[in-house]
C-alpha cells in the first residue's frame, strides 16, 4: 500500500492545529484483496510445508496392540505429558482430574476476573504486568516445561534421564520420600490426628488457601484501588486459582529439595 504523498506534511499540520473533539474515522482496508491475499499465500505456504513434511517423515507405527505387554515407560500423547508429569507430585485424583478441570475453568474465567480495561487489542506488558506474568508463568514455566521434561527427560520407571544418558531399565532410585509430619522438625509434633485426619496438614492447607488470602484482603483492600475494584468475589477466585497454580511448583520444590511426598494425609485423599 503506497503512502499518500505529503502525508508527513499533513501530519505536521494536524499536530499544529488544535485537536478536534470528534472520534477519527477508523483506518480500515478492504478484505478483498488485502486480507484475502495474505490468507491465500499463508494457506499455500502451510499446505506446501505439510506436504513436504508428510512426504519426508512417516507417522509413527509400532507393533500391533498387545494388552499383555506394557512398554516401559508408557507415555501419554505429548500434549498430555504435562499432566502425566504432575502425577509425580500429586495423586491421580488431583493431577488427572481436579487440576485439569481447574486449568480449563481457570482459563474460561480469565476475561471475568481480569477487569483491567487497558491492553485491549494491542501488545503491552507495562499496562498489565500481573496478568501477563501470571499467564506466562503458567503457560511457559508450568505447562510447556513440564511437557518438555515428560517428552525428553523421562525414561523407564518414569525416572529422569539426561538426553545423553542411556535409558537403563534397571536403574535403581532409592525411595526416600516421607510425608510432612515425619520430616525434620515436624517429627517433634507427633502427628496429631482427629478422625484419622492429620491436623498439621489440615492447618497448613487452611493457612495457605484461606487464611493467607483473607488476611491479605483485610490488610490491603482499604488502600489498594485494584483490590477495591476487583471486589471480594473476584478477588477470592483470583486468589484461589493463583494459589492452586503455585501449589504445583511448591510441591515440586518440597519433593526435589526435601523428599517430601504428601503435605496432608486423610483416609480419603492425600495432598
Amino acid at each position, binding site marked *: 500500500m503506497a503512502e499518500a504523498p505529503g502525508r508527513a506534511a499533513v501530519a505536521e499540520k494536524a499536530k499544529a492545529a488544535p485537536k478536534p473533539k470528534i472520534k477519527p474515522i477508523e483506518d480500515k*482496508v478492504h478484505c478483498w484483496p488485502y486480507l484475502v491475499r*495474505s490468507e491465500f499465500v499463508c494457506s499455500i505456504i502451510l499446505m506446501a510445508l505439510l506436504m513436504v513434511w508428510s512426504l519426508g517423515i512417516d507417522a509413527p507405527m509400532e507393533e500391533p496392540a498387545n494388552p499383555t505387554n506394557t*512398554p516401559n515407560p508408557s507415555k501419554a500423547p505429548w500434549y498430555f505429558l504435562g499432566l502425566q508429569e504432575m502425577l509425580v507430585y500429586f495423586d491421580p485424583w488431583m493431577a488427572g482430574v481436579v487440576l485439569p478441570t481447574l486449568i480449563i475453568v481457570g482459563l474460561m474465567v480469565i476475561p471475568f476476573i481480569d477487569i483491567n480495561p487497558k491492553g485491549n*487489542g494491542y501488545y503491552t506488558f507495562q499496562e498489565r504486568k500481573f496478568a501477563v506474568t501470571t499467564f506466562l508463568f503458567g503457560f511457559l514455566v508450568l505447562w510447556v516445561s513440564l511437557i518438555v521434561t515428560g517428552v525428553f527427560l523421562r525414561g523407564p520407571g518414569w525416572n529422569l534421564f539426561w538426553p545423553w544418558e542411556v535409558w537403563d531399565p534397571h536403574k535403581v532410585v532409592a525411595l526416600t520420600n516421607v510425608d510432612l509430619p515425619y520430616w525434620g522438625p515436624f517429627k517433634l509434633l507427633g502427628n496429631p490426628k482427629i478422625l484419622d485426619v492429620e491436623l498439621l496438614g489440615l492447618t497448613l492447607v487452611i493457612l495457605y488457601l484461606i487464611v493467607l488470602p483473607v488476611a491479605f484482603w483485610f490488610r490491603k483492600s482499604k488502600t489498594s484501588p485494584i483490590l477495591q475494584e476487583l471486589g471480594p468475589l473476584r478477588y477470592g477466585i483470583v486468589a484461589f486459582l493463583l494459589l492452586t497454580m503455585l501449589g504445583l511448583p511448591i510441591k515440586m520444590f518440597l519433593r526435589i529439595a526435601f523428599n517430601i511426598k504428601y503435605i496432608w494425609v486423610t483416609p480419603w485423599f492425600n495432598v
Partner: protein
Amino acid sequence: MFKRLKDLKKTILESQVWRSMFRHDYADTPRNRTLQIMSNVWMHLHPPKVRRHAIRIRFTWCMGGITFLLFLVLTVTGVVLMFYYRPVAEYAYADMKYLQFDVPFGMLVRNMHRWAAHGMVLTVWLHMFRVFMTGSYKSPREFNWVIGVILLTLTLLLSFTGYLLPWDQLSIWAVTVGTNMARATPLLGHEGPFAHLAGVTPRYDARAFLLGGTIVGPPTLLRFYVLHCIFLPILASLLMIVHFWRIRKDGGISGPL
C-alpha cells in the same frame, strides 16, 4: 478473429447462465471489492473491511486462520482414511498396514492427517497465546474466549481419541495412561476419593464408561472411533460457527480502542 473472441466473451458474460452464477464483474472498484466478499458464501466469513492493523501478520500471527485450515485438512484427509479403515480390533491394525503399503498415496494421507493433528494442537495453543497477549478476550469478547477454551479442549480430545485408532502398542498404552486418571475421579472413579459413597466398582465407574470395559479393548476402539469421527467434529464445527460469528458480532478483530 480477435473481434470474434471479444463477441464470444460478451455473449458468455451476458448469458443467463453466467449471470445466474456471478452477480458482478471483476473490475477493481470499491463496489466490487465489497461484493466480492458479500456475495460469496465462503468469503462472507470476512467483513467487507477490516482495521488496517488486523491484516498484519505480526499482530495475529495468522494462527486462528491456520488452525481453521488445519481443521479442514484434517476433515478431508480423515474422510479419505475412513474409506480404508475399520474400527474393529481384528482389522484396525491390518487396515493401517494396508494404507501404508497398498493404498495409492495411503501413507501420504495418513502422514498428513497425523502431522496436521499435531500441528493443530500447537497452533491452537499459539492462537490462545496471541489472543491473551493482545488482551483480545477483554470486553466485549469475553464469551468468545470461553468458546475458544472449549474449542481448545475439544481439539485435545479429538487428537487424543484419534491417537487410539492405529491400534498399535503406542496408541493403546498412551490411551491407557491417559484414561487411567479417570479411575481416580472423586466420587465417580473406583479409586478416587469418596468412591464408596457413590458405590462405583471397577466395572461401573467413570473410566469404564469411557472405555466400555475395564481395559482399553475392542469396545474402546469403537467408542473412540465414533467420538473421533462423528461426535467431536460436529460439536467442534458447531462451536466454530459460533466462534467466527461472534468475532464479527463483537466488533471484528480486536484493536486499540
